[in-house]
């Protein structure tokens, strides 16, 4: 299947990788080990979704995952389908992140920040919409980390691996 150009622009590996970097960064700020890879597969589709963007309004990093899910139940409608549909995109993003050394696929399937850093200017050069996506990824990183282990996060979202 050929991805139409504009969809590809929304989901290109470089962009998704930078969202993942943000996710990993905020996650590691709470739990230094960094997120387990499956958590990334859960977070990225939600961050990328324009449809769920509105659920993030009025939240901050202290809102917490459970409270957010309680406020916006629509997140859980068809979540598994959403995640399953974007597995490839996330894998591509992890791959790209590892090749460009932004991310390290570390011991025990943990994701860590790599040696290279993203230029802040690159992010700020993005339009408002993509910048928001990155921000959402960061917020999810924080929530996931404060919620507990990957298992707890999956549990709260009502899905299993």
């Amino acid at each position, binding site marked *: 299947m050929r991805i139409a150009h504009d969809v590809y622009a929304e989901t290109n590996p470089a962009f998704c990788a930078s969202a993942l970097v943000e996710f990993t960064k905020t996650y590691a700020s709470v739990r230094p080990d960094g997120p387990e890879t*499956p958590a990334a*597969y859960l977070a990225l589709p939600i961050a990328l979704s324009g449809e769920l963007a509105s659920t993030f309004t009025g939240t901050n990093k202290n809102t917490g995952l*459970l*409270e957010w899910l309680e406020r916006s139940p629509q997140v859980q*409608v*068809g979540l598994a389908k959403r*995640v399953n549909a974007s597995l490839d995109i996330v894998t591509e993003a992890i791959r790209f992140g590892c090749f460009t050394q932004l991310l390290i696929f570390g011991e025990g399937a943990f994701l860590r920040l790599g040696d290279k850093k993203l230029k802040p200017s690159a992010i700020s050069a993005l339009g408002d919409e993509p910048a928001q996506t990155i921000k959402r990824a960061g917020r999810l990183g924080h929530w996931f980390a404060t919620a*507990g282990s*990957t298992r707890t996060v999956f*549990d709260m979202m009502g899905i299993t691996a």
Partner: protein
Amino acid sequence: MTRWNIATIFFLGVSGQRREVTFAADELNIITGASGTGKSTLIKAIDYCLGSSKCELPAHVRRRSIAVGVKWVAGDAEMIIGRVIPPVGQATSTRMFTSTGRNLPLPETVDEFEGTTTVEAAKAFIERAFGIGDVISEPDAAAARGRATVRHVTPYLFVTKEVIYSESTLLHGLEKADKARDIIAAMPYFLRATDEASAIDERRLRQLQRALEKEEAKARSRAAAETALKQRATNLLTEAHRIGLAKSPSLDAPEATLLAELKTIGETPLQANTYPDEGELGALNRRRREILAEVSALRRHLQATRTALREATGFQGAVLRQRDKLMLAEHLHLDGIAEVCPVCEAPSERGREAARALRTTLTKVRAESVAVERVRPRLVEHDRALEEEIGQLNIELRRIDDQIQTWLRQSEETRRLADLGQLRAHLLGRISFFLEASVDEPRQATRDLSVLRAEIAELEARVDKEAKEIKLRRAEARISQFASEAFVALPTVAPCIGSELDFSSRQPEVTVIEEESGAVLRLPDVGSDQNYLAIHIALSFALQRYFQTVNAPVPGLLVLDQISRPYFPTSGEDEDEAEISGDEEDEDVQAMRKHIDFLFSETARRKGLQVLLIEHAYFADDPRYVNATRERWTRASGQALIPLNWPARGDE
């Protein structure tokens, strides 16, 4: 269905200490001890971890511990609910922790708690675990009366010292007027006289009935307007015919044809010099298209939400939801023997390690998550929000349509001002005015009334107020029967010997039907603390037995705070544990033994029922009692709920 029991209640100290009190599920558990050792604090701790608004833990506990937690178990599903204890002088804390799964380790410190969240979200979490669905009451009723929450479960769990032999308060929490109302309103739900599905049906039914009324009123007014409309339309057409704009009208044509003819006349091209800006119309039409797209998107969401709702409530609400599964393992090809790195697909040792690590992570997620969520109550709210949004969009759509029409009318005007026959133009104006007046809004396809009526009929068949009443009565009858059975086995004095109990959920109240005379006695007429104690014990066990038979979303837990109260009235506050071992037995001790026998036999009989007995008396000569005693906090042993050597916290 396994019922929730408590496995552990634990307190965390300032510097990594942890005090656990462990209980056996499905059994009678006894805690004995001197007064002031924290026996009743256990009830407060459970209540606090069920999201009570105030922290009622006594000061000496709050001075030494920083968090409290309760581990619930149901089969192999586990749930740990924790909450931060506020320092003395602060009313409460809103930080709670919730996690579910299998083999959950108890946290050592506050930081190890999983699932930090707020009290509100935690309550919703517990409700889902217990299976308490969201019963939306009358939308226009003040606040959410009748919405069952986890806070309305506590009357059936705790028989506290205020209640256990009270002659006025039947259940824990009913002594507080502001809470009692809601507890009573939620009772039919817990007695299974109503359930989520029927509540949702009821709401839908009300909506549809309103819609039907509206549609019918519209149809009536349309019918009334039709004749007058036809009259005027014919007039205009004849006029148009006179000045050569149209053919002569057929008199028996239906209204729609007449209107269509008028429209075509109205659109007669007349030369004009100036037209309003075309761009505006384009913009309006664009906006209109956007709105239509939005509406259809929202409809899709609504559909998805409804499907999710149906799934959540479709299986009588009691069936476990299977969790949705992610295809991660298949996606990363972890099922086979991984030869390559799942991420970069290069064959390497590191890659193999990574694959292994990923596999263990996923296995852990799969093995330890338990499907405890059943009903997604909030979806109902979401559903309503979506409907409102669609309504809003429809209103905007109408507004846009109006604007488009106005625009067209303006161009009409310019045409009229062009020097074509004034008369014609005038007539056209009149026609367009008439069209506007008669077709007040773009004729939306009216709802098919017969479909609506069919839907209503179906819902009415399902929602049956009388059936609800009958169900409630049956529930009361069964509880009365259970309570009477238990009552016989308990020690009582006249007038209660051999009497039956009758429970009503309206007040709620229990009346005693005397044997022989059949006299109906209200509680105050009964007298004697012994009788009140027996009535409370019988009722609480009867309710629990009923909950078990109907799979009500109430945990199988009953906490009794000192049944010896009427028999050994405490003289002072500083009473030590009273040890009883077979010397001379007075009546009181015999009566107590009868109670203990009942507790053991009843708990053994009911599957999934766990009883916590907090007691002053210790029956050293009863092996069952000795075996069931989990903790003894006597003066001699110096033990207590919170060890006395715990350091105080430094934040007061």
